[in-house]
């Protein structure tokens, strides 16, 4: 359907050749990603109205070992779509006694694996890659959480008191309809905020799609250093993961190995400077370094594995 709209629109302009095919890619991908985001974010926001953070936290508190880590990771996937809301959650978890390792797992998976991104990846690359992204991200989160706990880094969380407003319910008892409309409003706001990033990302993807010669990637972006370089490149780039997927999609179309693209994508999402500036409010240097290091190492490892498998 989106393809049809895009082809019709381009037909109207009478453009053909490279410019035509780039523009077609731009319209098609922007439409596709926006609709998927709207659907998935609405659905997840709706589900989340039944899962207030206090409930999640009390649930995690009683869990030990692997199951708890895995659940913490899964929670990271459906967590809010803004790191500005993850950090208060992190403090709430720590303050109320959720095991430290699990909170780190949550904090790692949350920016890296995003429920809408899973579906967009599925649309772009197929289910193998989407599932690999999901399990790979979970694995990095669980491993990172376990490691940081083993290293005893808990003491580097800032000192704070967790207060008594805790007993105010965060979601009043609402009926189905108001939950649904609230979730949809939420999704519209979030998509509106992400949309410019998508537009730019798809634009870059479209330019790559139409104009970048394949030899360029063959020559410059393969070899064993490609994965670490792609990961490092992701750090200074700040955009939404939704804006990176179309770029990755075009690059893969031009011959860039999948693992390298996924590493780049995850690094853009999880290792960004503004995110670490926010974390600095709640963590000391040592913990931030270990946290960033474990994510970076995990992403590089995952990139190599993906390149070997796909």
């Amino acid at each position: 359907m989106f393809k049809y709209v895009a082809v019709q629109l381009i037909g109207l302009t009478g453009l053909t050749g490279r410019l035509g095919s780039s523009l077609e890619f731009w319209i098609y991908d922007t439409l596709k990603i926006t609709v998927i985001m709207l659907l998935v974010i609405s659905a997840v926001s709706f589900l989340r109205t039944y899962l207030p953070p206090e409930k999640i936290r009390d649930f995690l508190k009683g869990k030990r070992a692997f199951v708890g880590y895995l659940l913490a990771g899964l929670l990271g996937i459906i967590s809010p779509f803004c790191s500005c809301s993850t950090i208060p959650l992190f403090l709430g978890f720590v303050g109320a006694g959720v095991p430290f390792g699990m909170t780190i797992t949550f904090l790692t998976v949350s920016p890296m694996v995003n429920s809408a991104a899973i579906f967009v990846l599925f649309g772009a690359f197929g289910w193998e890659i989407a599932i690999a992204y999901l399990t790979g991200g979970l694995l990095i989160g669980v491993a990172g959480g376990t490691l940081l706990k083993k290293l005893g880094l808990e003491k580097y969380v800032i000192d704070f008191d967790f207060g008594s407003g805790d007993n105010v319910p965060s979601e009043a008892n609402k009926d189905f309809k108001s939950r649904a409309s609230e979730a949809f409003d939420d999704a519209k706001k979030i998509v509106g905020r992400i949309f410019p990033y998508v537009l730019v990302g798809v634009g870059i993807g479209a330019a790559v799609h139409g104009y970048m010669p394949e030899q360029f990637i063959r020559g410059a972006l393969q070899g064993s250093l490609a994965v670490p370089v792609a990961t490092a490149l992701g750090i200074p780039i700040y955009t939404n993961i939704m804006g990176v997927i179309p770029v990755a999609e075009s690059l893969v179309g031009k011959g860039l190995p999948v693992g390298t693209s996924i590493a780049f994508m995850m690094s853009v999402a999880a290792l960004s400077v503004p995110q670490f500036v926010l974390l600095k409010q709640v963590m000391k240097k040592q913990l931030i370094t270990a946290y960033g290091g474990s994510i970076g190492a995990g992403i590089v490892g995952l990139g190599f594995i993906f390149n070997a498998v796909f």
Partner: protein
Amino acid sequence: MLVEILGSSGCSTCESLKQDVEEIVEDLDKGEDIEVTKVEDPAKFASYGVMSTPGLVVDGNVEFKGTVPSREEIRSVLS
């Protein structure tokens, strides 16, 4: 009366709650007695026991968290 809006920078729902509150305060009779501030430090959120933003705190009591209350709800806690 001190009204605090809890919300990190970059949180758009927190910004819209702040605007709502400011507009409502302007319309209230005793509006000039109400001071509205935005709190962006997550450790402060935690000290109020708030883990999902936006939060609305009136004179140190948490009234709402994790949701943007309706204008009627805001009015009822401010008067």
